């Protein structure tokens, strides 16, 4: 039961109820759509990049509490970061939720993301947490097309 509490922490519910940076970003210059074929969840990421810095980022779509909270927390963490930093966060987040490799605690906003660490005990749900990250990764690489978790 503690694993379940670890997964559904209060912060997750908070972000699920009132996701931050939710809605279309009108002046986005990078976008990508993510899709999880297992559950039908969709997320769209809108990013504004200026001189290599993510000056603004938002998302919309529909997903479970884990993917919604993950997207919400991710947008909070990445706003104001450089593209290179975003990549470091992506790698660190993957390590956190898969348990493979070490999360990089030196990243200043890594603490915020650690609330999603409980998902590593739920292999079937890891993709819920990583879908927004794969999607923003695709947006930043300017692969302006659909990505899936597969």
């Amino acid at each position: 039961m503690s694993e379940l509490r670890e997964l559904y922490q209060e912060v997750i519910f908070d972000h699920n109820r009132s996701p931050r940076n939710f809605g279309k970003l009108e002046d986005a210059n990078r976008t990508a759509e993510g899709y999880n074929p297992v559950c039908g969840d969709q997320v769209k990421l809108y990013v504004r990049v200026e001189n290599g810095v993510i000056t603004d980022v938002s998302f919309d779509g529909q997903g479970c509490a884990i993917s919604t909270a993950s997207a919400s927390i991710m947008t909070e963490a990445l706003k104001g970061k450089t593209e290179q930093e975003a990549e470091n966060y992506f790698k660190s987040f993957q390590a956190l939720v898969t348990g493979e490799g070490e999360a990089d605690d030196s990243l200043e906003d890594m603490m915020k993301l650690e609330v999603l660490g409980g998902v590593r005990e739920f292999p079937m749900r890891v993709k819920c947490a990583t879908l927004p990250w794969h999607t923003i990764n695709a947006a930043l690489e300017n692969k302006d097309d659909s990505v899936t978790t597969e």
Partner: protein
Amino acid sequence: MNSTEASVCVSDLSKTYDVEAIRAEFPALHQDIHGKPLVYLDSGASSQKPRSVIDATVYYYEHDHSNVHRGVHTLSQRATDAFENAREKVRVFINAKSDKEVIYVRGTTEGINLVARSYGDANLKQGDEIIVSEMEHHANIVPWQMLCERTGAFIKVLHFDDSGELDMQEFDDLLTEKTKILAVTHVSNALGTVNPIKDMTRKAHAVGAVVVVDGAQAVPHMQLDMQDLDCDFYTFSSHKMYGPTGIGILYGKEALLNAMPPYEGGGEMIKKVTFEETTYNDLPNKFEAGTPSIAQTVGLGVAVDYLTAIGLDNIAAHEQDLLDYATSRAADLDGLRIYGTAKHKASLLSFGLDGIHPHDIGTILDFEGVAVRTGHHCAQPVMQHYGVAATTRASFGMYNTRSDIDALFVGIEKVQQTFAR
């Protein structure tokens, strides 16, 4: 009451339906999940297996295994007999006219693909029409789309209303002399709707179309009679009817199957091979290239025995009670919406909870020991009809009880409490 009367009462009860005795036959049901007794409500995805099926598969490997139709030695004969006896059991079970009409395939998906490839490629041409219902599983949509790409035929969609019943007025309007195939499910895996196959077949035949029925969700729940339904092709999987995975049945009318080209080439499906010319084997072997799933087929035969002994009518009555009970429990719950309320429905409950995603529901229920399916159920057009990405589905099998449904609703209340924080 004297002891004779008491024993009469007990035997009458057991004649109606002894669900506890049935449960005792299924080893996988008796385990704890996250410290709670397993409540298995996902038989629609795949059912658990009775001891007799498991034992038969093990016995086959321990005593009788060899390749079928290949050798003159004793084990080959035993394997072949067991393999072919299962075919006869299935023939009786679905009341096909002949063993030649019972083709072994890997499952429902392969059955539909075989018909689309073999019958479809040989008979459809540019401008022909295939009617496919909106409630189909992807396995009864995609093979037809692929056939359309190859031939220039096209799909016409038969819609359902919000209760989950097919629009029979639209069906009448869609049927024309251009209609070559009707592809429809007997029971919807996402909604539970039981479709009027016999009636639809009669109408489709009137315009000269052949009828392909996805029976995957029907076969564990109702007595099937191919000669009465009169459909041209009917396909189902063993693993949803308490048998092993990896084996399924394609029923087809003999005249149609005879006229169809083979689906795959290889061993077993030939009479004579030279580099100049190959002659194909007779039915059913013409469609059974390669070494088949022998042990699984033997297990399927035993699953048929098991279902026959208990009686599909008894199972259907038991499951109807479960469905009625679950539906009434659901009606009492605020914030729960049922998807699929057709008058004629098989025993599954597809639902949504306000503001809570099915995957979150599924994870929390799992911690209550309750196994349900969450997602789009490989029926995305059904999800699109209701404007949702996914639903939660509890499907009931012959071994489920009212207390399983009570556990489901205890779990659902827990989900709602968790999300109300």
